[in-house]
């Protein structure tokens, strides 16, 4: 057992032959959600009231006037990034009415994943990666499958050369975190420097990529500034990285231990849409996100002071027993599933269309190519949020993939 301290994620190494529960993601918030409806944690001396119930989470997310996103850049992220960045992530850290204007100019680009050509390119990336790993004796899922898949898929969203993915893969899973620390300014600067260079390149030689498109985008009669372009790109890089990686990796662990579910997807691909939503609910790759209270108020009967932080705990809301029947079970064809894994209301995830296409294509191709997944070694990634310890994914997941043909 390896246990970290401080902000660093806690790692617990479980031998699969003892546990055989690598795909189990327990609901650590259950008792607090039922008893009090809130949790509390400190984060770099900027405490947070964690909102745990589904209805309260949605209510606070909807109430952007009472709980703002447009605070100091980095403050609504947990852990706070105020000490490692000044760039405002757009539109994530902007509130209406400006937020609405940004969303309006960005949405058509971020809906491109619905196009047939985009889906076909995504399908080719996934197929190639799985074919490559099916030839191997063992696969470390994060470094050899999920991270390359996420990075290569991102070239489609940015409409850049596939070669760029190699640079992003070399950065590792997190863009603001390193092995040594949960918040790493030097590592964040690698991303910022990269984006600055790409913006320079796009100014000098405009193309059809997102950098060039943003530099040429007009908002209320003026061009987006360099800082705005940077803010949109930082969000695009950071928002969908470990979240997508965790979804893919966790899904593989699930199908490894539930082979009948893989058979089901193979026999009835019509459930893929529902299965995607259910797995994203169950895994909730982003645990929570913050807001800053604009007045002295109360959440779930708990006092919240003006200019203090709350967090909208998507992971807890997605297991709320008053909303979801058998919330701790994966029901692949769950018909009504009002989950909040992609956020809720104005700030619902801008990259959700891209993420959903990756997930759906992955669930479509995986059962066609893979007959069985065997877990060889698993090292869990456990986040610590105050007294809550939550498994969000894996530090390492070694598997053997068996081909559908042989």
């Amino acid at each position, binding site marked *: 057992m390896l246990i970290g301290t401080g902000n660093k994620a806690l790692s617990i190494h479980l031998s699969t032959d003892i546990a055989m529960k690598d795909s189990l993601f327990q609901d650590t918030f259950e008792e607090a959600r039922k008893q009090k409806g809130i949790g509390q944690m400190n984060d770099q001396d900027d405490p947070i009231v964690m909102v745990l119930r589904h*209805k309260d989470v*949605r*209510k606070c*997310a*909807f109430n952007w006037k009472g709980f703002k996103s447009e605070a100091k850049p980095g403050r609504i992220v947990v852990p706070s990034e105020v000490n490692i960045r000044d760039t405002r992530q757009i539109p994530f850290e902007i509130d209406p009415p400006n937020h609405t204007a940004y969303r309006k100019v960005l949405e058509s680009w971020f*809906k491109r994943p619905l196009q047939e050509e985009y889906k076909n390119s995504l399908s080719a990336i996934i197929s190639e990666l799985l074919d490559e790993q099916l030839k191997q004796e063992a696969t470390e899922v994060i470094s050899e499958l999920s991270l390359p898949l996420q990075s290569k898929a991102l070239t489609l969203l940015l409409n850049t050369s596939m070669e760029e993915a190699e640079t992003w893969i070399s950065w590792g899973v997190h863009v603001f975190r390193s092995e040594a620390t949960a918040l790493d300014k030097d590592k964040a600067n690698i991303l910022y420097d990269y984006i600055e260079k790409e913006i320079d390149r796009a100014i000098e030689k405009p193309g059809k990529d997102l950098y060039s498109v943003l530099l040429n985008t007009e908002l209320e009669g003026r061009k987006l500034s360099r800082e705005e372009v940077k803010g949109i790109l930082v969000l695009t890089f950071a928002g969908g990285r470990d979240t997508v990686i965790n979804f893919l990796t966790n899904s593989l662990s699930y199908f490894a231990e539930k082979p009948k579910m893989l058979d089901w997807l193979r026999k009835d691909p019509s459930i893929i*849409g*529902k299965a*995607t*939503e259910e797995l994203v609910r169950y895994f909730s790759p982003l645990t929570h996100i913050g807001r800053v209270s604009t007045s002295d108020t109360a959440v779930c009967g708990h006092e919240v002071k003006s200019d203090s932080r709350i967090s909208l705990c998507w992971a807890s809301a997605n297991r709320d027993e008053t*909303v979801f029947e058998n919330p701790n079970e994966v029901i692949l064809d*769950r*018909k*009504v*599933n*009002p*989950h*909040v894994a*992609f956020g*809720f*209301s104005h700030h*619902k995830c801008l990259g*959700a*269309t891209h993420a*959903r296409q990756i997930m759906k294509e992955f669930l479509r191709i995986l059962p066609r190519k893979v007959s069985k997944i065997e877990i060889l070694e698993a090292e869990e990634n456990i986040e610590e949020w105050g007294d809550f310890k939550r498994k969000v994914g894996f530090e390492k997941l070694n598997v053997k993939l068996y081909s559908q043909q042989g």
Partner: protein
Amino acid sequence: MAVINFITQEGEKISVEGTSGSIMELATSVGIAGLDGDCGGVCSCATCHVYVNETYRKIVGEAEKIEKEMLEFDELAKENSRLSCQIEISEKLDGIELIVARE
């Protein structure tokens, strides 16, 4: 079979024939503007919000609890709002007019 009439925020009227499935599925299959159905119909995203014309409100019926709660947090919601993923196509809906809530 039923003819479903969609009216977009641009004022364009698009008539589509459907036999089964949800109104949202029918709309996304022909690409009605403003009706995205991001979550595929599990009542998680409200991107398939429509207004039902008065004549058909009783036929379409009331929203269930989960759908009502979803609409409660949609600033575009009105009395005649429904999420089209929760409306099944049937012959009774032939001729219905649905105004798409979003652009």
